[in-house]
């Protein structure tokens, strides 16, 4: 009993090759949108948009947003969100800096001290993510409450421990692998973000992580009935998010050459979530695309950077970004209904055509009858 719709499904997936699994219609739309935006800004800025200095800036924006977006994607697949990564991004480099000072004071060399201090800071960041995960899954605390609390906690500890004034993170800029630049155009932090994005995509598409986190977000009861270790994998997702916050804080801080408890605000997290949603990963869980969401981060980064290049007033800038996100979301959401609408219209027209032809045929045969 293969229905018509199943025949359609058969046709579209019967010759599926490997890449087709990951790149579908939505990802291609996101790529095209990004290209259109490049063209738009290039045109409007009369070429300034693609100047090397701006490419560098654009990649820096993409890196900031991209890391958090990719961290949120698995969590959103589980039907949750994490609002704490920016707090971790504030705290981790401060811990890194203090440990580094301490190690150097104890006689360790510059690089070994930096590396070990950074690894410890990142371990701590992962642990904070772990706490988030445990509180939410085992503690049964609502994910918004838990992650917002963690955000306040980490920001608070950063403020209490190090004050609100920025600490110089000097010498870290001597560490090429943190804050350096390749050829003056490619920032090393962007490579870190890209590596993290690839890690998330690999875990999601190629390992059980993706399967289980999707199952958890699709229907947590059925996933548990089937035996999926839902709690464990949600905790893993939060650990990854904590690590992302750690990387963002330390790597980004190395470029800026100073770290402070107020470096990152939660605005960035909200932009990252918006980027993920625009890229196709929905908030309800179970649905989305990591590749698409990364392209969504690129898109928002482009909007941020492009409007700056065009000299858009900083006050109107926020409003424009918000409006742009809304417009994109509405048009994305209604794209399907538009297609369905046109299909329905054309079907109606077809039936009208057929009926009209039948009526005409009837008239003609009646005319013939009357003539006879």
């Amino acid at each position, binding site marked *: *009993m*293969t229905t018509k*719709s*199943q025949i359609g*499904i*058969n046709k579209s*997936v*019967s010759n*599926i090759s490997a890449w087709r*699994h990951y790149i579908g219609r939505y990802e291609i739309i996101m790529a095209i949108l990004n290209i259109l935006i490049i063209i738009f800004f290039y045109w409007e800025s009369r070429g300034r948009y693609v100047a090397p200095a701006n490419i560098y800036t654009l990649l820096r924006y993409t890196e900031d947003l991209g890391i958090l977006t990719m961290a949120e994607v698995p969590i959103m697949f589980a039907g949750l969100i994490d609002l704490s990564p920016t707090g971790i991004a504030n705290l981790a480099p401060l811990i890194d800096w203090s440990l580094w000072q301490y190690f150097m004071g104890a006689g360790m060399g510059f690089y070994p001290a930096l590396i070990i201090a950074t690894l410890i800071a990142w371990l701590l960041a992962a642990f904070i993510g772990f706490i988030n995960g445990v509180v939410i899954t085992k503690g049964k605390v609502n994910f918004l409450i838990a992650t917002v609390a963690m955000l306040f906690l980490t920001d608070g500890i950063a403020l209490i421990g190090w004050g609100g004034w920025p600490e110089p993170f000097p010498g870290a800029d001597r560490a090429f692998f943190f804050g350096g630049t390749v050829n003056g155009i490619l920032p090393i932090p962007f490579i870190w973000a890209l590596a993290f994005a690839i890690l998330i995509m690999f875990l999601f598409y*190629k*390992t*059980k992580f993706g*399967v289980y986190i*999707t*199952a958890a*977000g*699709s*229907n947590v*009861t*059925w*996933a*548990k*009935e*089937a*035996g*999926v*270790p839902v709690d464990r994998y949600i905790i893993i997702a939060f650990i990854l998010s904590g690590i992302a916050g750690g990387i963002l804080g330390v790597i980004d801080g190395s470029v800026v050459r100073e770290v402070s408890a107020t470096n990152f605000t939660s605005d960035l997290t909200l932009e990252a979530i918006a980027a993920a949603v625009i890229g196709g990963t929905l908030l309800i869980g*179970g*649905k989305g695309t990591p590749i698409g969401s990364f392209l969504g981060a690129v898109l928002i980064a482009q909007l941020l950077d492009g409007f700056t290049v065009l000299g858009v007033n900083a006050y109107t800038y926020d409003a424009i970004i918000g409006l742009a996100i809304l417009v994109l979301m509405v048009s994305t959401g209604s794209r399907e209904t538009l297609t369905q609408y046109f299909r329905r219209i054309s079907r109606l027209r077809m039936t009208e055509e057929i009926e009209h032809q039948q009526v005409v045929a009837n008239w003609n045969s009646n005319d013939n009858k009357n003539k006879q």
Partner: protein
Amino acid sequence: MVGEELLRVEDVWKSYGPVVALRGVNMVVRRGEVVALLGDNGAGKSTLIKIISGYLKPDRGQLIFEGKPVRFNSPLDAKRLGIEVVHQDLAVILDLPVYRNIFLTHEITKNGILQDKIMMEESKKALSVLKIPMPEVTVKAEALSGGQRQATAVARATYFVKKLLLMDEPTAGLGVVESKRVLAIAKQYAKEHNVGVIFVTPNIFQAYDVADRIYYMEQGKIIFEKRKEETTVEELTDTITKRILSLRRRDKL
């Protein structure tokens, strides 16, 4: 030929808050036999299945599997012992493709990397047992009809089961031909693969058709147990109807 004792349910109690779902259930399943669990909705059949499959823990009592007491902390513990289940709500994840559903918790991996090609091939084999028309195994489960989702759930359990197969109303969404097929599979796995089968159904005809022994449950208790040879469909219908009517008269239902 019915073999040695596979599962013994001993005095299992389970409550959901103030509602007592199981009141001291005792039951035995042997290798190579099909046991039917008969009863109306709300009798506690699904709760018992959820406990045996490891999804719930009993409040009191224990499970003895192959002579040893077992405690399941999750369905994975039960699966490791060779117990597979078809849940009443199917537990088929709609956002995952068919082949990932079939291999859910049984994924084939090499160094942690999913082996999709093999899983897709084997899924087709798992589904072929049921002979229900299915689209490609790469299709998301949300695109399947109810019967096809049920086929996925049954295929999953039958493909992986080693010792004990639990089927909770597995023909609920299926047509006549497919239902007969599922009953045949239940019997086949018992006889040919020496698997123990618990088949839950509210339908007396189905129970009598598929089972070697029938347990009748009512309000959390096993009321009686009968072997197929010692009863008939008419007798079962008669007994059960009388009980339900008398309970209704006494306003117990």
